[in-house]
């Protein structure tokens, strides 16, 4: 027999189940009836908490946005140079996606479905990382500490490599990379990225 949940617990359970379904099938691939069925309740119960499927989808997205990484510890616990901070930031980001890969699945679904509002939220989650790279490259260029000319392209290259690692390891679980941990791969692309942009630590 299922336990009777209070309103807060019920809302949280609806969001948790909806997140899994939206991540697997996208916004358009899931109906309110299916979410209700998975929860073992009637659609009317869902509508008591969310006025529409769109409202439920937004609640899922906003909950994910609230869980955005904080990089305070990254800054406080270690050296301040570009290479060290970038490695620690990318490990924090990768760890968070590894713990909850639904984020990446929903990002991909959102892109396929051309959901402009939600796409912006997903872009924002990457933005801390890409902005850090862009601003740092612009600064480092003044000291001839990098040889890449386009800082924005640098951010995009790094994001592409990170996303591919996380996609291969956390979304499709590609057996070809089974021997590598996410941490190992992230460490590896950090070194290769620094080589590619010609990074030398400013003296």
């Amino acid at each position: 027999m299922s336990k009777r949940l209070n309103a807060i617990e019920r809302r949280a359970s609806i969001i948790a189940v909806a997140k899994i379904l939206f991540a697997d099938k996208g916004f358009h691939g899931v109906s309110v009836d299916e979410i209700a069925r998975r929860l073992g309740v009637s659609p009317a119960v869902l509508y008591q908490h969310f006025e529409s499927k769109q409202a439920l989808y937004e609640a899922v997205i906003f909950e994910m946005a609230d869980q955005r990484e904080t990089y305070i510890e990254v800054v406080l616990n270690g050296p301040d140079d570009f290479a060290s901070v970038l490695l620690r930031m990318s490990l924090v980001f990768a760890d968070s996606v590894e713990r909850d890969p639904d984020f990446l699945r929903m990002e991909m679904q959102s892109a396929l479905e051309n959901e402009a509002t939600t796409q912006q939220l997903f872009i924002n989650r990457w933005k801390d990382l890409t902005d850090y790279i862009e601003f740092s490259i612009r600064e480092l260029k003044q000291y001839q500490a990098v040889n890449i000319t386009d800082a924005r392209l640098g951010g995009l290259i790094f994001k592409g490599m990170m996303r591919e690692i996380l996609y291969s390891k956390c979304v499709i679980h590609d057996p070809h990379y089974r021997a590598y941990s996410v941490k190992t791969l992230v460490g590896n692309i950090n070194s290769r990225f620094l080589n590619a942009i010609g990074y030398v630590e400013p003296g």
Partner: protein
Amino acid sequence: MSNYTEELDARGLNCPLPILRAKKALNVLASGDTLHIIATDPGSVKDFESFTRQTGSELLESQEISGEFSFVIKKS
């Protein structure tokens, strides 16, 4: 004339850049000196609360003025 020892313009920067720059600016200040920071990232409000709590510095001021966030940190 400014009432602060040092000023930091972190407008247009996202986490962790404002924190990183504040940390570097505080490193060269003496105990009791103050750092005034202006930022535009709404996340910086929580970030600077957390930063001062963890570093033992004092957050003397944290306010929003016309979409910008102003912080004053006193170095411990």
